[in-house]
C-alpha cells in the first residue's frame, strides 16, 4: 500500500526538480538564519546561489555530531523558539546529548512519513499498533505515536519495559502490528515462552523494527518465532527520527528513502568523496524540508549503500541497504575493521546458534584479543564434548574466513548474557579502560 501515491512514485526527473528547489531554499535559509552554517559557507567561499544543480551538493560543507554538541542545546535551530513545539534529544551516554527541535509543520511532515512507513507495511485504519519504542526524549515512541494517529490506526502507547505486562496486553488487546527494536521483539518472545504464552495465537501480523542494526538472519528468526512479517525501518533524531526510510512489504529488500524530504549520499568515510550506487560507505543525509532543525550533509556514521533500481512495490524512491554497522561501533582488531553485525551474521549462519552473543575485546601485551561469547540453546547442545568443541571451532573458522580476524569463541549458558529492554549491549571493549 502506498500512502502518498503522488510523491512516492514520482518520475526521477520530477523528483530531482523538487529536490533541487528545496535544496536551494534550504541553503538560503541556513545562510540567513544559522550563524554556524553562514560561517561554514564563508569558509568554503560559497554563497547559497552557487548551488545550481544537485551535482553541486558535494561542494557543500558537512555537519557532524560534534557540530551538534558544540552548538548545544539550541544553537543550530533555524527558527525562533516561539515556533518550536517539540524538543527531542539523543541519550547522550557519551557527553552532552544532541538536541533537536520541531515546528508544528515538522511534526505534521514527520507524522505523514510515519503514516507512509506504516502503509508500506500494509497497516491501515482498523489496525491496532503496539508501540513499544520508548516514549520520552527518544524520538522512537512519540514519532511513531503521532504517525499512527495520523494514519488513523489505533495506537497502544506501551513504551519500553515491563515486559510481562506487555505480553498481557498483546493477548488482551489483540494488536495486529508491533513497533519495537528487533532485540526487544526476541526478548518479548522469550518472556512469553516463560509465561507459557504462544505467539502463534496472538493476532500480530507485522513488526516494524529499527533503532539498532540487525541482520537478514535475525529477520528470519523474528519472523519464524513471532509468526509475523518483520520490516526494517531507519531514522535518526538528528535528521528527524524514525521514518527516514523503510522497507516495503512487497520486496523486503532495501529501505525506501523518502527523497522528497531527505537527500541521501554515500561517501568514503576516509576521503569524504561521494561513492557511486551499490558501493558501501557512510550514509550522509541533507534534510530538504525541516524547519526548526535542518541539517546539511549530516554524517550519520551509518554504513550503507544506495540502490536506484526500480522496486516491484511501485515506489520510485531509492532504496538504502540494511545498515552494515556504525563507523563509531567499528572495532579495529589487529588492524582489521570489524562490525558486530558481521559477527552476528556468522553466528546466525552456523545453524542452531541463537543470536544471543557478546563480543569482548581486550589487549594482552600489544596484542588485541577478540572473544565471542555465544549462548548454547537446546538445538546446538550435545552431550558430547567434541561436538560442542566442533561448534566452537566452526564459528571461529567462519569468523576468520569472513572477517579475516581470529577470535576465541566461548559457549555460555542460556540467559547468561544480559538482555536489555531496549538496545542490546553487544560489545565490551576493555582496551579503553
Amino acid at each position, binding site marked *: 500500500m502506498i500512502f502518498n501515491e503522488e510523491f512516492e512514485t514520482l518520475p526521477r526527473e520530477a523528483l530531482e526538480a523538487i529536490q533541487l528547489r528545496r535544496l536551494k531554499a534550504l541553503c538560503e535559509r541556513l545562510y540567513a538564519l544559522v550563524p554556524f552554517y553562514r560561517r561554514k559557507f564563508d569558509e568554503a567561499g560559497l554563497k547559497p546561489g552557487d548551488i545550481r544543480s544537485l551535482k553541486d551538493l558535494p561542494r557543500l560543507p558537512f555537519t557532524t555530531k560534534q557540530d551538534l554538541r558544540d552548538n548545544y542545546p539550541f544553537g543550530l535551530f533555524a527558527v525562533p523558539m516561539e515556533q518550536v513545539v517539540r524538543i527531542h534529544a539523543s541519550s547522550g551516554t557519551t557527553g552532552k546529548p544532541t538536541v533537536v527541535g520541531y515546528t508544528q509543520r515538522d511534526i505534521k511532515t514527520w507524522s505523514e512519513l510515519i503514516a507512509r512507513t506504516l502503509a508500506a507495511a500494509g497497516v491501515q485504519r482498523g489496525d491496532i499498533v503496539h508501540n513499544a519504542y520508548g516514549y520520552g526524549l527518544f524520538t522512537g515512541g512519540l514519532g511513531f505515536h503521532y504517525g499512527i494517529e495520523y494514519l488513523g490506526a489505533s495506537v497502544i502507547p506501551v513504551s519500553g519495559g515491563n515486559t510481562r505486562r506487555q505480553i498481557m496486553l498483546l493477548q488482551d488487546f489483540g494488536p495486529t502490528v508491533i513497533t519495537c527494536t528487533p532485540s526487544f521483539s526476541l526478548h518479548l518472545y522469550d518472556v512469553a515462552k516463560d509465561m507459557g504464552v504462544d505467539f502463534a495465537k496472538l493476532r500480530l501480523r507485522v513488526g516494524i523494527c529499527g533503532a539498532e542494526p540487525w541482520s537478514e538472519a535475525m529477520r528470519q528468526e523474528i519472523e519464524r518465532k513471532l509468526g509475523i512479517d518483520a520490516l526494517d525501518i531507519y531514522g535518526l533524531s538528528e535528521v528527524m527520527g524514525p521514518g527516514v526510510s523503510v522497507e516495503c512489504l512487497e520486496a523486503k529488500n532495501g529501505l525506501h528513502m523518502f527523497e522528497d524530504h531527505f537527500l541521501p549520499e554515500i561517501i568514503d568515510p576516509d576521503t569524504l568523496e561521494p561513492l557511486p550506487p551499490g558501493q558501501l560507505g557512510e550514509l550522509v543525509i541533507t534534510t530538504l524540508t525541516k524547519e526548526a532543525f535542518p541539517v546539511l550533509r549530516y554524517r550519520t556514521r551509518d554504513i550503507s549503500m544506495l540502490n536506484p533500481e526500480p522496486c516491484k512495490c511501485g515506489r520510485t524512491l531509492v532504496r538504502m541497504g540494511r545498515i552494515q554497522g556504525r563507523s563509531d561501533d567499528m572495532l579495529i582488531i589487529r588492524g582489521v575493521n570489524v562490525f558486530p553485525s558481521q559477527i552476528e551474521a556468522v553466528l546466525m549462519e552456523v545453524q542452531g546458534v541463537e543470536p544471543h552473543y557478546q563480543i569482548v575485546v581486550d589487549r594482552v601485551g600489544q596484542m588485541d584479543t577478540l572473544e565471542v561469547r555465544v549462548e*548454547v*540453546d*537446546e538445538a546446538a*547442545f*550435545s*552431550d*558430547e*564434548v567434541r561436538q*560442542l*568443541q566442533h561448534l*566452537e571451532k566452526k564459528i571461529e573458522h567462519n569468523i576468520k574466513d569472513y572477517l579475516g580476524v581470529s577470535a576465541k569463541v*566461548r*559457549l*555460555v*549458558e*542460556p*540467559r*547468561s548474557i544480559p538482555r536489555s529492554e531496549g538496545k542490546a549491549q553487544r560489545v565490551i571493549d576493555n582496551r579503553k579502560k
Partner: protein
Amino acid sequence: MRLRPLQAGGGIRHDWEEIMKVEQISVFLENKAGRLAEVTKVLGEAKINIRALSLADTTDFGILRLIVDQYDKAREVLKQHGFTVGKTEVVAIEVPDRPGGLAWVLQILSESDINVEYMYAFVQHSGKNAVIIFRFDNLEKAIELLQKQGVRIYTGEEVYRL
C-alpha cells in the same frame, strides 16, 4: 537388590531394545563456581534422586550427564531454571566386579567395531557386579550384540529404581 536378568539369546524383539534404553539427561554448564551446586540443588528441591552421574569438562564449559529416578520431572525443573538440557539414550550394562570384567565387555564391542563414546560407573553395585553406563555410536547394534554374548543389560525401569 537382586535383579532378574532379562532373557538373552535368540529371538530378540525390537521392543526389547526399546525397553533396554536408558534415558540420560545432559546439562550444559559453564566452568564457573556454583553451577554444579545449582543443578543438584534444583533436583534436590524437586525430590529427584540422582542415580548416576559423570562430568566431562573443558577449560570453558562442562557437560553433566545424569541418570535420575524421574526423567521427565528432572528435565522440566532444570529447564524452568534456565538450563540447557539434552536427552541421550544410553545402555546400563552389568560388568562382573573382578579383574578383567570390564575388559571382557569392551573386547566384545571392539571386535564388532562399536565405538564407546563415553562410559561411567553407577554409584551402586548390583549384588557382586558393577553397573556401567555406556554411550555407543550404534545403540541398537550394541544391545543386540551384547545380548547375544550373554552380557546382562538392565532395562530403563530397572535402572531408575536401582
